[in-house]
């Protein structure tokens, strides 16, 4: 679509654009495993959508179905408005893919990898060089574009894959565990790039991860466990739904503080680990009330919001680490092989 067309569309807001991803009743059975057991999902255009869950939860299978790499047993999925079963080429044309496993030619340079990709995706040649420069700059690899990929670090390679996934201006960028196997600092920088990308490109980002902390970067998340979506919403709302914030205060007179909390603020508190602890729905807005109404000098206040680990625990009755240990840690390639 040319820029002129885009402008025309902006002026005449027609019907609501189709969801970037629309999944209905999706099921995938392999010979021995029910990898996906019926999921429904809508992702809006422009959203950064996180798909969370332990290894083996069915995330990778779902993303492979959405990318037309695996056929669903039942149900439908549309990506960028196209059906993944009947319009495979159109879907592929409009998505960018970054897999868990590397897919670069390490003998070629970074720029040669991008050029190869552009030709494979039929990118218009007149704009191709500028676009390559743009995505290389975006991920901070412009200076290294002429070096063979084998000289790149793990983080640089992942960034090159992200740049390549964006090269053909996809509508939806799928990232399957983009930060797996990277050190925390590199993980943080990858997310920094993804956030920056989201500001500069009209794109929906669909990302899977089993690092709960990474989900904080997403507009909405779905938590998947044992083939089902067990929770769906904004990180804030999911955490709020799980329960209350935990507030810990240290005071001049703890027993007096506990009495005052009960009498004036209607909160039951107790001393844990040397601090007065209690739970409230919204810890942040409770703090001013605390200072106004407690009447006991306060030395410090700590407010802890529930984490997504708590969310996972609340919905599955197990922690994500325990789920990975027990839940048949499935190698996605092994699953794929079984499906053949």
């Amino acid at each position: 679509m040319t820029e002129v067309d885009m402008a025309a569309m902006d002026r005449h807001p027609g019907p609501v654009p189709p969801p970037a991803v629309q999944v209905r009743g999706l099921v995938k059975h392999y010979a021995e495993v029910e990898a996906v057991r019926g999921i429904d999902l809508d992702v809006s255009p422009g959203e950064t959508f996180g798909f969370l869950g332990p290894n083996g939860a069915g995330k990778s299978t779902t993303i492979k179905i959405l990318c037309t790499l695996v056929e669903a047993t039942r149900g439908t999925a549309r990506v960028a408005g196209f059906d993944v079963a009947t319009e495979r080429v159109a879907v592929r044309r409009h998505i960018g893919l970054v897999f868990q496993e590397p897919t670069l030619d390490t003998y070629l340079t970074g720029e040669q990898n991008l050029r190869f990709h552009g030709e494979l995706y039929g990118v218009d040649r007149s704009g191709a060089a500028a676009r390559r420069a743009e995505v290389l700059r975006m991920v901070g690899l412009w200076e290294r574009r002429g070096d063979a990929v084998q000289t790149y670090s793990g983080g640089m390679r992942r960034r090159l894959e992200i740049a390549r996934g964006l090269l053909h201006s996809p509508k939806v960028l799928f990232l399957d565990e983009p930060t797996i196997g990277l050190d925390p600092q590199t993980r943080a920088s990858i997310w920094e790039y993804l956030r920056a990308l989201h500001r500069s490109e009209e794109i929906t980002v669909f990302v899977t991860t089993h690092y709960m902390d990474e989900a904080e970067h997403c507009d909405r998340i779905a938590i998947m466990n044992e083939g089902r979506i067990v929770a769906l919403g904004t990180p804030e709302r999911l955490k709020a739904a799980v329960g209350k914030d935990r507030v810990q205060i240290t005071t001049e007179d703890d027993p007096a503080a506990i009495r005052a909390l009960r009498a004036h603020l209607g909160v039951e508190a107790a001393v844990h680990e040397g601090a007065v602890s209690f739970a409230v729905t919204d810890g942040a807005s409770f703090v001013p009330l605390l200072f106004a109404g407690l009447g006991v000098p306060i030395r410090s206040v700590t407010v802890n919001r529930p984490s997504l680990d708590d969310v996972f625990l609340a919905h599955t009755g197990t922690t994500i680490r325990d789920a990975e240990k027990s839940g048949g840690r499935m190698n996605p390639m092994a699953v794929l092989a079984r499906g053949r």
Partner: protein
Amino acid sequence: MAPVTVAAVTVAAVTVAAVRVPAMGLRHEARAAFVVWQRELIRFLKDRARMVSSLVQPILFLFVLGVGLSSIVSAGHGSVDFKTFLFPGVLATSVLFTAAFSGISMVWDREFGFLREMLVAPVSTTAILTGKCAGGATVATLQSLVLLTLAGVVGVPYSPVMLLTLVGLLFLMAFMITALGLVLAARIKQVQSAMPAVQLIITPLIFLSGALFPLSGLPAWLTVLTHLNPMTYAVEPMRSVVFDHLQVDPATRATFDPGIFWNHWHVPVGVQVVLVIAISAVLLAVAVARFARTE
């Protein structure tokens, strides 16, 4: 974390300039095939070790085997040196190695993930594998040019027509062998199994093709095997072209270049070339079907 800051600043300044992607069609397929072809060339030119090593064996064949055997083989046939006879066969052998390696290199592409990058693209598997075969064929043919320069040393004249015809025939053969390598690569998932599998296939292809000995006067069982070998139909046209440009008496030619007979029918060289093209097409189709299904 300096790089992060840099990226954020850069991104803020970048304007969104989505590239235009024209409708898909034959032109897009051709572009995809062309870039796969280009990649084969780039990788080959970067790999000096492979370039040199794949020349060693044919040169050993030509000069060691050729010289070693010429003393006994040419006795009684005077006018043709065994090295001259061996020349087209050695060309074919060198091309066979390089082309088979190009085809089987798909196993490495799979191992390192690049196969996936190619197969998830919005182009047909046919376009990608055709590019791969053309790339393998080009690389192998380029390599054979080095050997072609040795023609004079072994008594083969530098006739432009003959040399051009040989290059064309070598390209066709290399295309066929690359396609065969792809068929193998579709099956072989383990990198360690790839080279042994190539050796297992290459050795009988060479020895049963008439590349290294004349097809005349072979026992019936060996004749049957050579007739089943597609390489036979790729080697014989080359030898025929070389002998067309040599000054030899019919009896000598009948010994060294007897041609191929199917039940007394002398298979014309043209038919052999068509056969090689047909086999290439079949192998390519099989490879496409296998890669499209299994990856």
